[in-house]
């Protein structure tokens, strides 16, 4: 059994994590940590969070046996944790409901957030609308272009979408700008970070809000199969859907877990987002973790066909799970992800988000090598309606 003693009280997972933040933000981070610690112990807060997850987000989400996919692959039995069936279409709502309930408790009236694919932006705008809070979403111009559908949704929900032109105009740049906006408005504004990254306590807090995924999956698989699964698979951008699934299983030594990073156009091309597979230890956005960077410590631009994976870092707990060997990290290319996107759509009638398609792609590779008595759970973190155009472009490009 593995002992869960991480992180330490300053948010370090081994050498990773921590709180590498500007002094202007430090008091806010300490205040947030104290407020979160109090909320966690408060039965009323837990009850309120559980209420909104159930009544509003629509949990619990099904653990669905993908029979045709299993049959086609001819190996392990595959289950899909259907986070795509949450309100707003992805796992992101779990975290934004948690953080916005906390923001309310702290008396904040305004929230800001960064977004890549727009899923976290939509989930934040949704929770902000639900509680009548002001909402500004920072989004890279490139992502605004490729995820126009989600931009409309955010605007309909009453959020202001702030375009970010810096850098490659994707998730990293949106997060830079959100942090600057937070520095400027820290006294009355709550920053809703969308993944298990950022300065402490965000990685812990987001993981805990998301761990409802794994807790449900555990209960569901025990009910359906009478035993724990052999392998968990989830895609990794910052890593929140993966940690949400993995965390409740960490102490179960027999459960293997694999995080799937975006290899983009291939690891040797430099056009990828595989921070653990191909990065070095660095500090960005408030935490120490694996980072895509050049030889001088300048952060490199990530690339992935899935906007939600297009990030040069990764949550510090994943970096730590990698170093301890508890979880494995692999990568799949754009092309493999697109194939998996189509395969799951055709075989199960489920259009996965391109992000989640990375997890499916790895399952397609690995399930056939496993015995039929083995059980795999894939976290289907979001639905793919938003990606129709990207898929169309990518398939046209091939023809």
């Amino acid at each position, binding site marked *: 059994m593995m002992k869960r003693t991480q992180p330490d009280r300053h948010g370090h997972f081994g050498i990773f994590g921590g709180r590498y*933040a*500007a*002094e*202007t933000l*430090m008091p806010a981070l300490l205040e947030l940590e104290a407020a979160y610690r109090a909320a966690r112990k408060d039965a009323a807060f837990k009850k309120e969070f559980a209420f909104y997850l159930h009544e509003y987000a629509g949990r619990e989400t099904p653990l669905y046996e993908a029979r045709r996919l299993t049959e086609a692959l001819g190996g392990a039995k595959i289950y899909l944790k259907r986070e795509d069936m949450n309100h707003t279409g992805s796992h992101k709502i779990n975290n934004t409901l948690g953080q916005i309930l906390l923001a309310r408790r702290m008396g904040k009236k305004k929230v800001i957030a960064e977004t890549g694919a727009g899923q976290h932006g939509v989930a934040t705008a949704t929770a902000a609308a639900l509680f009548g809070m002001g909402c500004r979403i920072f989004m890279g111009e490139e992502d605004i272009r490729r995820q126009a559908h989600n931009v409309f949704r955010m605007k309909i929900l009453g959020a202001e979408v702030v375009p970010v032109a810096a850098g490659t105009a994707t998730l990293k740049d949106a997060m830079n700008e959100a942090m600057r906006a937070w520095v400027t408005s820290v006294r009355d504004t709550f920053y809703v970070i969308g993944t298990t990254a950022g300065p402490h306590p965000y990685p812990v807090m987001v993981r805990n809000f998301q761990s409802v995924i794994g807790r449900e999956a555990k209960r569901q698989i025990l009910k359906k199969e009478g035993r724990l699964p052999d392998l968990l698979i989830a895609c990794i951008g910052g890593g929140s859907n993966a940690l949400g699934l993995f965390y409740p299983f960490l102490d179960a030594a027999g459960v293997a877990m694999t995080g799937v990073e975006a290899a983009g156009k291939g690891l040797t091309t430099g056009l990828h987002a595989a921070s653990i597979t191909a990065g070095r230890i660095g500090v960005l956005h408030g935490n120490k973790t694996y980072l895509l960077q050049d030889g001088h410590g300048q952060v490199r631009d990530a690339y992935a066909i899935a906007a939600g994976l297009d990030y040069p870092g990764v949550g510090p707990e994943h970096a730590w799970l990698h170093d301890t060997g508890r979880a494995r990290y692999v990568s799949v290319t754009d092309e493999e992800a697109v194939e998996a996107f189509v395969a799951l759509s055709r075989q199960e009638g489920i259009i996965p988000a391109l992000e989640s398609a990375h997890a499916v792609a790895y399952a397609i590779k690995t399930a056939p090598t496993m015995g039929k008595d083995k059980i795999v759970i894939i976290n289907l973190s979001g639905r793919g309606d938003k990606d129709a155009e990207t898929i169309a472009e990518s398939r046209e490009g091939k023809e």
Partner: protein
Amino acid sequence: MGRIEERFTALKKEGRTAFVAYLTAGDPDLEATKKLIPALEAAGVDIIEIGVPFSDPTADGPVIQAASQRALKRGATLKKILAVIAELRRTSGIPIVLFGYYNPILSYGPERFAADAAASGVDGILIVDLPPEEADELRRFTDPAGLAFITLIAPTTDPQRARRILRRATGFVYYISITGVTGTAVPRPDDVRRDVKRLQGMTALPVTVGFGISTPAQAATIAPLADGVVVGSALVRLIGAKGGSGDLIPAAASFAAEIRRAIDAASPPNSPVK
């Protein structure tokens, strides 16, 4: 006594407020940086903060972001910047503080950085994203190397935290005068007066004020309230506008001289102790 301490001691004797100037190293290129620093020194700058460009400067406003991008495009690296400082050191005794983010230093190697920075003639370092909670991993090398670890205090830092932070501060204290990123707002004199006075009551170190001071008039307003005034974005904006043109150096020098005059006029040399 280090160069920073010497400079502040001398200024105090004269009853003057320190003029701290920030520029981004390598903007428009490192050759220009080499010429800018002596010119700024001659124009009356007391301490130079040399910004080490970083790809993701989350504490900086648009002006310094753009300068960092320009410098990186022209190939500025921490190693080259240290070489420029070593060269300047042959002829200049001006105190030099490296200002930047942690990742380039982490990538360089903290231990090697401490040795190389000290050997190049760097006097202090100011790492925006390395709060006291995380600073030991660098200070265990830079403190023994004799580099001052300049500590930031923000308007959001409460007195208890400030007192705790200041116990381990060296060099001088950098008070961030606005709740925001560099060069994006103007500090309110009444708040600055109150906050600086409070900090001076907690530490024997000089307290400088920066992040929002861009004109001679603003420098004049803040000068009587603090031990030092930092001007950054305004100078960087000017450098950006002049770029590689022939009058870059004289323009920067004349802007610095203007700030110097404004500071001295507002807190005249050898005036009664403030």
